[in-house]
């Protein structure tokens, strides 16, 4: 039924949109795939060709459907996936965080020769070097720990506990204190390094991820991969959390307006210019406007005395986007700014003098003026797949770029702005389906003008916490929340209305038509992408006690989840019992129902039953994200008990139910 609706919508809007898209697409000089037929063909012929190509692609996609079982059986090689780096003060060694092999590789910066491989915790994410370079700190995102490495012996000497999903890390040598940004608990652990005890937990924003110490050591800045929770369908707002290292308290929250994902932050050596890599989404208007303007603005926020207040600047160009700005570095002499654009496989180089001149000249906000980047971008340097972390040599002459999905490091001469060598970190030589699929997931090359890729919304293959108006069905229709991608096999169909029966449909024609508006994946690519998406595992559940030994509150919640009678003894209709829809190993019966959550803007109130594992991580809730918390699903959006019988529950019983849901 929903699939038919899609077809109808396509017949209403698709031809015009595609024709226009094709015209625009043919102007794109960097599209890696063959472009659509040019518009100089006779119109009818072009339409026919286009129709046939759509049918052909759809058939190919269907034929290419990999069964989940087949995907799961694909052997996963231990790729290294270098994510972040630190460099020794003499510039001789690079410490490389390898995300997929759970290690830090110590390599010679000049030759790439492996000095040592240090096994750390699960899914290491960030690295910091102490001021005297004697200690390395590595966060282990899925172990909830920090590995402490003695750089003399290159051995892990301590492992310290943190909050949920530790990411960024900074060591304040003066106070002997370690700061860790915890992405899932949305806070910052302050750890007394002498005792190893966490002395306090500071409130950060949602998705606290990257930390940066100001050159004078007075402040630590924290950025966030998700925007802070706000009102339904409001503009995303993020923040830079500013910590005073003297008091170890948060003293300021610099607002990042209309920013959904902020990544690395760096400050110039003179302390006068700080830079944040960030994404500005246009999630409040229909995605039909992909061809009319950007869906994501790849941009920077600047602050510091060089620019006065907070200034946002665009990185994109009028007809080309540089997706997913991620890592940033400023040359020691502040002449240049380097930026990895993880979805565009490139490094953007900005002339700082021209940048500051532009900022000072233009008095009005210009972050949406994509022509502005020409004033200060000096070059775009192609590098490897999914470039992430950056490290500048102490003299500023060499820039090292971690190509996460190549297991290599690009070495850039910062004067000529050219790649002069590529260091092979020694990962598997074979590029298997998983890796190919992961590259497809993280690239923006398939979208119109390279605007965005899967990972723009599924940040690090998770969510973005936003509600989107995805399809060209009119303004404000069918608003949808971003669903989790963890362990999807066995949760089909997909899409909030269940309209896509399988993952190839979800990732294939739908993506082509409604998201990317440009090239679709060929059958092999689609198979690879689906294989990768199906391979995404559950993140560790922090609420489930060891050995599933539930707490009393969780046990009480479980009883409520499984009950068949109300507290008054009345039978609860089978279809209104929690365990009816949310059944099976993924807590979904893979069917669609009207649970009364439909809005006037929804074409149909019937929605797909979502899986529940790790539901605590994926706020907001309901198909459109209108429930800002698990509680609101029932306190606000279930007045007629169409989504389970809950009105007989006391407040503490509802709390128990939620405590149980968080363990799933």
């Amino acid at each position, binding site marked *: 039924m929903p699939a038919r609706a899609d077809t109808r919508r396509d017949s209403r809007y698709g031809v015009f949109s595609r024709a226009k898209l094709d015209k625009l697409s043919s102007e794109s000089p960097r599209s890696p795939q063959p472009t659509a037929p040019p518009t100089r063909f006779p119109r009818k012929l072009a339409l026919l060709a286009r129709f046939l190509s759509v049918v052909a692609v759809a058939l190919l996609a269907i034929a290419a459907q990999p069964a989940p079982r087949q995907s799961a059986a694909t052997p996963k090689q231990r790729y290294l996936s270098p994510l972040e780096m630190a460099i020794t003060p003499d510039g001789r060694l690079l410490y490389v965080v390898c995300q997929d092999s759970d290690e830090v590789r110590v390599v010679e910066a000049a030759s790439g020769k492996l000095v040592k491989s240090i096994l750390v915790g699960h899914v290491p994410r960030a690295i910091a070097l102490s001021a005297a370079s004697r200690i390395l700190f590595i966060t282990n995102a899925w172990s909830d720990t920090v590995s402490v490495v003695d750089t003399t012996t290159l051995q892990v000497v301590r492992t310290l506990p943190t*909050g949920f999903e530790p990411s960024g890390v900074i060591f304040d040598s003066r106070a002997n204190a370690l700061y860790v940004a915890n992405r899932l*608990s949305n806070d910052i652990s302050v750890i007394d390094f002498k005792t190893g005890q966490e*002395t*306090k*937990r*500071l*409130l950060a924003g949602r998705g606290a991820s990257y930390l940066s110490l100001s050159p004078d050591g007075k402040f630590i800045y924290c950025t966030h991969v998700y925007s*802070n929770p706000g009102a339904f369908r409001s503009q995303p707002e993020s*923040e830079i*959390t*500013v910590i005073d290292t003297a*008091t170890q*308290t*948060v*003293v*300021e*929250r610099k607002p990042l307006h209309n920013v959904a994902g902020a990544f690395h932050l760096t400050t110039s050596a003179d302390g006068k210019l700080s830079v944040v890599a960030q994404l500005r989404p246009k999630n409040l208007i229909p995605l039909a406007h992909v061809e009319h303007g950007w869906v994501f603005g790849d941009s920077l926020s600047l602050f510091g005395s060089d620019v006065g207040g907070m200034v946002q600047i665009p990185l994109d160009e009028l007809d080309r986007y540089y997706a997913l700005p991620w890592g940033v570095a400023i040359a020691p002499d502040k002449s240049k700014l380097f930026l990895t654009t993880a979805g565009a496989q490139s490094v953007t180089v900005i002339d700082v003098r021209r940048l500051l001149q532009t900022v000072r000249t233009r008095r009005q906000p210009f972050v949406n003026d994509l022509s502005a980047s020409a004033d200060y971008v000096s070059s775009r340097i192609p590098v490897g797949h999914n470039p992430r972390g950056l490290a500048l040599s102490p003299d500023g002459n060499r820039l090292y770029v971690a190509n996460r999905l190549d297991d290599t490091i690009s070495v850039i001469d910062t004067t000529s702005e050219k790649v002069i060598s590529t260091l092979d970190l020694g990962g598997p030589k074979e590029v298997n389906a998983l890796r190919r699929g992961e590259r497809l997931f993280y690239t923006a090359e398939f979208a119109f003008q390279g605007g965005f890729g899967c990972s723009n919304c599924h940040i690090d293959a998770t969510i973005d916490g936003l509600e989107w108006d995805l399809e060209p069905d009119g303004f404000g229709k069918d608003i949808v929340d971003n669903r989790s991608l963890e362990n999807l096999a066995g949760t089909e169909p997909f899409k909030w209305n269940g309209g896509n029966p399988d993952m190839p449909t979800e990732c294939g024609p739908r993506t082509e038509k409604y998201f990317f508006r440009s090239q679709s994946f060929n059958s092999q690519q689609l198979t690879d992408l689906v294989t990768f998406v199906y391979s995404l595992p559950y993140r560790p559940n*922090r*609420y489930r006690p060891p050995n599933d030994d539930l707490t009393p*509150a969780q046990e009480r919640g479980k009883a409520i989840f499984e009950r068949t009678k109300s507290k008054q003894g009345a039978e609860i209709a089978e279809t209104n019992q929690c365990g009816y829809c949310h059944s099976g190993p993924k807590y979904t019966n893979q069917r669609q129902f009207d649970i009364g959550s439909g809005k006037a803007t929804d074409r149909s109130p019937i929605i797909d039953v979502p899986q529940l594992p790790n539901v605590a991580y994926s706020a907001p809730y309901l198909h459109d994200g209108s429930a*800002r*918390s698990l*509680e*609101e699903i029932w*306190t*606000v959006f279930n007045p007629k008990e169409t989504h389970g019988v809950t009105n007989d529950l*006391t*407040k*503490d019983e*509802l*709390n128990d139910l*939620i*405590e149980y849901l968080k363990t799933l």
Partner: protein
Amino acid sequence: MNTRMNDVNRIGTAAIGCPVERSSTARCYRTAIRRGCLLLAMFAIFASLMFAQDLPTFRWENFTTANGLPDNHVYCVLVNGQRIWAGTDNGLGLYENGTWKVFRPADGLAHQAVLSLALDKHTGDLWVGTMGGLSRISAGRIDTYTQLNSGLSNDIVYGVAVQGDSVWTATAAGASRFNLRTGQWSLFNERNTPMFEIWNYAVSAAEDKVYLAVWGGGVLEFDQATEHWKDYNDPDGETEMVVMKDQGLIHEITTSVSYVDKILWVATYFGASRYDGRYWHNFLQKDSGLPSNFLSQVKGLDANRAWFSTDKGLAYYDGTNWAVYRPALDTHKPEMLVRDAQGNVKNIPVLSAPSHNYILGVDFQGDDLWVATAHGLSHGIRQKESVNLAKVFGSQEGKKPNEGATQ
């Protein structure tokens, strides 16, 4: 027994208290030191008693809407260094550097009526209990928790306290404990505690114990180690008649608790109580320096000293003596009443007083006070001069208890 006494007598002591027979030199010195310490301790106690004869005086500066306070009805006040937070009926006021900044729902606050405040001393975050939920102010950002969007037990948050990683709230429907690290809400009510009334008015939390003032239900004690609850009730029942004064809590209708130095201070609408874990001592208007039995708050300074917020003035108890600060109930002129241990009362001439008799809360800024009243916020600036009761009552014949005090 007698033999041993005789032995002691026979052994005797020298002038400095050293045994003259069967004593080694070391033992002699030890005993001397011990007795010296005893003497010092006695001197210290004597000195403290002498000092305790001094009652503080204040110069009062008052704030109303005329000079920036968001509303004249001030429910609570909290001092954080040089920042003064005032919870009023129409917004939360922040007084800093001589100016007021106001937070209301438009700024993200849960509700305009701010009933309670607590500071997380580790992080500097402020927790704000309102008539419409609980807000957290952290470096300017306001996050709000309500009974709809979170596990908070009820939106009317009369009391809030932070202890370690827990934020405790006393609400109109039981108490809540919010774990800041896990995000878990635990609710405490008639179903899992001896709370036979659910109207919680105040909470005081320490490392070992948490106390709840339950309006109509006495006091509840939570043992942090065992997670067990214990209730303290008025042995006379709910009657306002005091039959056994020091046998237990003075009354069931409790409004405030303050747990400090392992001493529990309790305010009720019918007097106040002090509990040391074994013995209760109760305070009534008729036999203490309390200007009224109707109390909104008590705040212990330490095991012996406390401030009482009553409907007839602000009272200070130093463990022996009392002082009351208020506008006189009849003339509204500034008034300070002092009362010594014998019940002698004297009216001390003063030039200023808190802005209103009806006191709702107090907090400390060094030696200064900040006082929430039903009509304005008052800053009590501690004066060098104290009232020395020895001088006050030594120079004249003491009056009878409460004589001269306008009650």
